[in-house]
């Protein structure tokens, strides 16, 4: 977790609290938090008020990531990062479903951040005209970690919606791999005086189901020359199925010959899947019936096409006089 401070009385002092991420629910986290604070050099005896950390998680659709990357690639030259709003909805079980996003022009100076709020409202209205169910659920920024300016922006967003989610998309690939992290914030206050804003990381669930439907090949490569048509796709799928079956065979062979220790779970899975092929006695008949139905349809469609060309000849090509 990272926490960043809002402007204190002396602007040169920035207090960064590094607290380890709680792995379970509240009581333990309070303990860890208190322990860490006592390690701090600050002379403040804090009354740490944690709001209980619910197991909040965020679900991110692939479109959002595409959007963010595209905005990052198109950012104006002097900006180091891109900031924008996240739209989506909150599901009944508390998960935040992030479905759409748009970028907001902003200016960042050393201490302050200026967001174009009017633009934000305009875009929000426009988006809601299309899809009134999408509401603001948070905001995003590119770049790794949470910085000082982020707290200010987060405060702005918490005025618009309760408990906004802050998503960071690391476009710089800082750790050598892509990291997409989401945070919610809690306000640490000392009695009445607001002290710091603590960002607590929450679990991010990347739903790639949509992307998979489209075909990850299309989305992965830099250029795809041809969209696959039905038969191509069918062929690819069957090849994958074949390779799966081959690997299962290999595994079973290896286990039987003692090269790999048998894992009962996998064995049960294999037995289940093999058993799930229905042992219908007249499966042949069913299959043949289906094949005949499809053949009939093919025949009908060919007849229709013949009819079409005939009709066209009659209508257009024929001359009366």
């Amino acid at each position, binding site marked *: 977790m990272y926490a960043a401070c809002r402007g204190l009385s002396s602007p040169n002092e920035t207090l960064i609290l590094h607290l380890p991420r709680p792995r379970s629910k509240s009581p333990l986290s309070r303990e860890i938090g208190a322990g860490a604070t006592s390690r701090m050099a600050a002379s403040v005896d804090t009354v740490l008020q944690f709001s209980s950390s619910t197991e909040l998680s965020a679900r991110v659709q692939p479109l959002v990531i595409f959007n963010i990357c595209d905005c990052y690639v198109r950012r104006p030259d002097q900006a180091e990062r891109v900031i924008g709003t996240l739209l989506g909805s909150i599901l009944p079980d508390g998960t935040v479903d992030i479905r759409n996003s748009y970028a907001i022009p902003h200016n960042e100076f050393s201490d302050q951040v200026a967001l174009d709020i009017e633009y934000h409202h305009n875009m929000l209205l426009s988006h809601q005209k299309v*899809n009134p169910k999408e509401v603001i659920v948070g905001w995003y920024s590119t770049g790794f970690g949470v910085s000082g300016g982020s707290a200010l922006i987060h405060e702005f967003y918490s005025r618009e919606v309760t408990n906004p989610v802050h998503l960071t998309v690391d476009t710089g690939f800082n750790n050598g791999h892509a990291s997409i992290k989401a945070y919610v914030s809690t306000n640490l206050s000392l009695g009445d005086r607001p002290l710091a804003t603590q960002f607590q990381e929450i679990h991010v669930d990347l739903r790639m189901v949509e992307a998979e439907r489209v075909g990850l090949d299309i989305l992965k490569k830099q250029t795809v020359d041809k969209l696959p048509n*039905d038969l191509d796709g069918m062929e690819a*799928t069957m090849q994958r199925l074949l390779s799966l079956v081959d690997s299962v065979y290999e595994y079973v062979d290896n286990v039987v010959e003692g090269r790999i220790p048998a894992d009962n779970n996998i064995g049960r899975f294999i037995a289940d899947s093999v058993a799930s092929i229905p042992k219908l006695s007249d499966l042949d008949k069913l299959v043949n019936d289906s094949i005949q139905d*499809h053949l009939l349809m093919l025949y009908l469609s060919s007849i229709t096409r013949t009819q079409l060309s005939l009709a066209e000849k009659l209508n257009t090509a024929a001359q009366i006089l």
Partner: protein
Amino acid sequence: MVAAVRSFLQVASTEEAAPPLRVVQIEGLAVLKIIKHCKEFSPALVTGQLLGLDVGSVLEVTNCFPYPIREADDEIEAEGADYQLEMMRCLREVNVDNNTVGWYQSTLLGSYQRVELIETFMNYQENIRRSVCIIYDPSRSNQGVLALKALKLSDSFMDLYRNNNFTGEKLREKNLSWVDIFEEIPIKVSNSALISAFMTELEADSPVTQCDYDRLQLSSGPFVERNMEFLIECMDDLFVEQQKFQYHYRNLSRQQAQQQAWLQKRRTENMARKAAGEEPLPEEDPSNPIFKPIPEPSRLESFLVTNQIANYCNQINGVSGQSFSRLYLMKALHED
């Protein structure tokens, strides 16, 4: 010497015709947006605007935004235009190309060939030099195929449409048949390096994707049923159109017969008059309603209907092909 130097104005006015559009290059972002929008509102039909750049023989689509669904038409016309301007302005501020290159719409089982489509095309063509329409079919995509098509009206058809002249002769002149109305343009998908890095990283490890599950589903029944229903309806429409033509022909031949009869009568009259020494009457009488030329019904509707039927047939063929493979696969698995 003087002839070699052309003024700027001359060069600008003698601009060469643009190279024909060969490929539409869409960014993955636009594809995902289109899919999301169409899927969310299916089965209602939705439209949206495409933004991008027009480069040589490639039309690049880099972004898009959806249109809100319009309930009634009258007052909301202005609102629609406002919305569009607002979106384009906002997108311009974040450096998105806000150059309209066309529009997209969703369709139900491929029944998109309507007169409205052609009209929209003509509207767009007046303002923008090259525009394209992307059709997405969410119901077909559930079968595991990415049903995205880019369409353009062919030039010869556009000329004909402008003159609003669809008689048989004109069509024969131009050698235009129903296949020539829409031209399908191949689509290429491109992605920026950043996003392909992300996707490669975030790709789930399983060797089988959701797409495969969709494709291997044995139940293609409902889809094919609806296809057949639409096909049958279209055949009915085609039949109605054929009836119109038959009626027209019948009228035409009847009129001709009448004309011949009248001409005969006139001739005999003239013979009688000549015998009586009077002036022969003219052999034509334009005021007689028999000679009024009967307007030929426009063939546009029948062309569109024909196109649709062909589309349905193609789809059925595709699905049947897939089903065959699936059924044989089942059979083989069962035998093992």
